[in-house]
């Protein structure tokens, strides 16, 4: 049986390339974006990040003992991700968005769809679906986060990590996370769970692509 990580990479590669080759994403990675659009993107990301740990917690509380290794993995991961919404807030402040405005921002339809799906999947589909969310978000951060933050820095003339700390640090941090995520994914052998994770990955890539497209 093929290790699940390899299987997941193959079954979702087109969705990954769908994100990568979306014209808005291509342009953003190549040339950065205007400060208005970057603000709009970070405001949406804030709500994705803010709901990341609650989704993980909802999933962890529903994961059966047969997959307890995933529950423990989620506990550790939640601790690492805790407070990262503050980084997004700081970046937004650096580009002129007050903290109150960030919290008060109403997320766009695609962001609501993304978060809504992830809660629903953890609750009703399969709690291990959460790994699909993590895979999609970590691929986006670790593979595209570096070039994207460089492009933003160049286009907005930002200095150092100011304004890009969230994306830039996740590009490095999620590189380490990818290796541990592969290890945990390879422990999953049952087909229904694998299928649920694949589905979640596809949905997450789809919605994140739409979020980029809409800003």
């Amino acid at each position, binding site marked *: 049986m*093929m*290790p699940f*990580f*390899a299987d997941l*990479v*193959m079954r979702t*590669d*087109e969705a*990954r*390339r769908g994100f*990568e*080759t979306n*014209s808005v994403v*291509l*342009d953003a*990675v*190549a*040339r950065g974006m205007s400060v208005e659009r970057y603000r709009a993107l970070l405001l949406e990301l804030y709500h994705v990040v803010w709901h990341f740990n609650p989704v993980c917690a909802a999933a962890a509380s529903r994961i059966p003992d047969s997959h307890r290794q995933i529950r423990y993995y989620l506990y550790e991961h939640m601790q690492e991700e805790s407070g990262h919404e503050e980084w997004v807030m700081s970046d937004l402040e650096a580009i002129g968005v007050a903290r109150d405005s960030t919290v008060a921002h109403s997320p766009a339809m695609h962001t609501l769809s993304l978060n809504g799906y992830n809660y629903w999947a953890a609750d009703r589909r399969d709690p291990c679906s959460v790994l699909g969310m993590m895979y999609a978000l970590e*691929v986006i951060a*670790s*593979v*595209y986060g*570096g*070039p994207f933050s*460089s*492009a933003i820095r160049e286009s907005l003339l930002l200095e150092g990590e100011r304004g890009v700390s969230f994306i830039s640090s996740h590009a*490095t941090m*999620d*590189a380490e996370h*990818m*290796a541990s*995520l*592969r290890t945990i994914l390879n422990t999953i052998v049952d087909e229904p769970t694998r299928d649920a994770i694949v589905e979640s990955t596809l949905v997450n890539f789809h919605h994140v692509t739409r979020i980029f497209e809409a800003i």
Partner: protein
Amino acid sequence: MRPPASPADGLHLILGRKYKYLRLEWTDELAMLRVRTCVKPIQCYSLAGLTEMQRVLDDIAENPGLVRHLVLSSDVTGVFNFGGDLALFVLLVRARDLDSLRMYGRRCIDMVWWLEHAAQRGVHTTVLVQGDTLGGGLESVLPFHKVIFERSAQAGFPEVLFNLFPGMGAWPLTIRKAGFSVANDMVLSGRLFTADQLHRRSLVDLVVEDGEGELAIDALVRSIDPRLRGTLAALHARRMAAPITYESLQAVVDLWAETALTLTTRDLRLMERLARAQVRKVGGDEEGAVEEIKRIELDTAWGELRTGNTQWGDEHAHTEERGTGVTAWGALPGR
């Protein structure tokens, strides 16, 4: 294995499949299958692109005698193929996923292996390169029986610039066509070469002016078709005289995958720099990955100039034959 279909059924099957990244055309008179690749917007060997290409090759193999000529070209202006899917590499390296890196490499050499045996399958293969072809893109060109480049096309193996090497047949295929010294120079320098430079090195059979590639294919195929059986037998014998084994290709892929896992953050950043340059060209910029490679070469050369360490010594003083002439070696005064 399925029993062979009738020629009409076989052709219907081959042409009837729905492909996302390939466009197929059939010329009945010559039994010629044209395959045009179109992995938009970034023309590279993505997993899906490889799967589709292998599907076409398998269909040809399952219908022996149907296709006499297989011709590959690119539908993307200015780019034949950028080679491996760099974003996928970055993902797999960061996930430390040796299995998937090997799997990707094996899919590539399966295609090389099929082309290596094309003459035995009764198929003559031709490739037309009308734009940049890098790394795996160039590797995929070398197993074709006839390689045609339009004059402005450039090619090379840039992998060494980010501490990797081309692992899907570059060494044995280049050595067989051009000799050990040329293979050494091309793989270890990471430099780019013009169509004429590759022609002089026997890696390209024919260089034609830009825009004349299509006519050249037609003329070439029509000249070979009347003497096809003899030509294929001779090409089969050529392979027997200088064989390449699947095991050796596989061993190199395994080494390539292991080496990929040793890439550092700096190496991956360079890879990302190239990927970003590819993206810029797709977005309409004049400059893309080829220009970025030249910049990386120049950076390296300036470093050498400052330190006095050229790695090569004086035996490589002939600038004309080194690289594209606008790259590091051509740019350095007094070399």
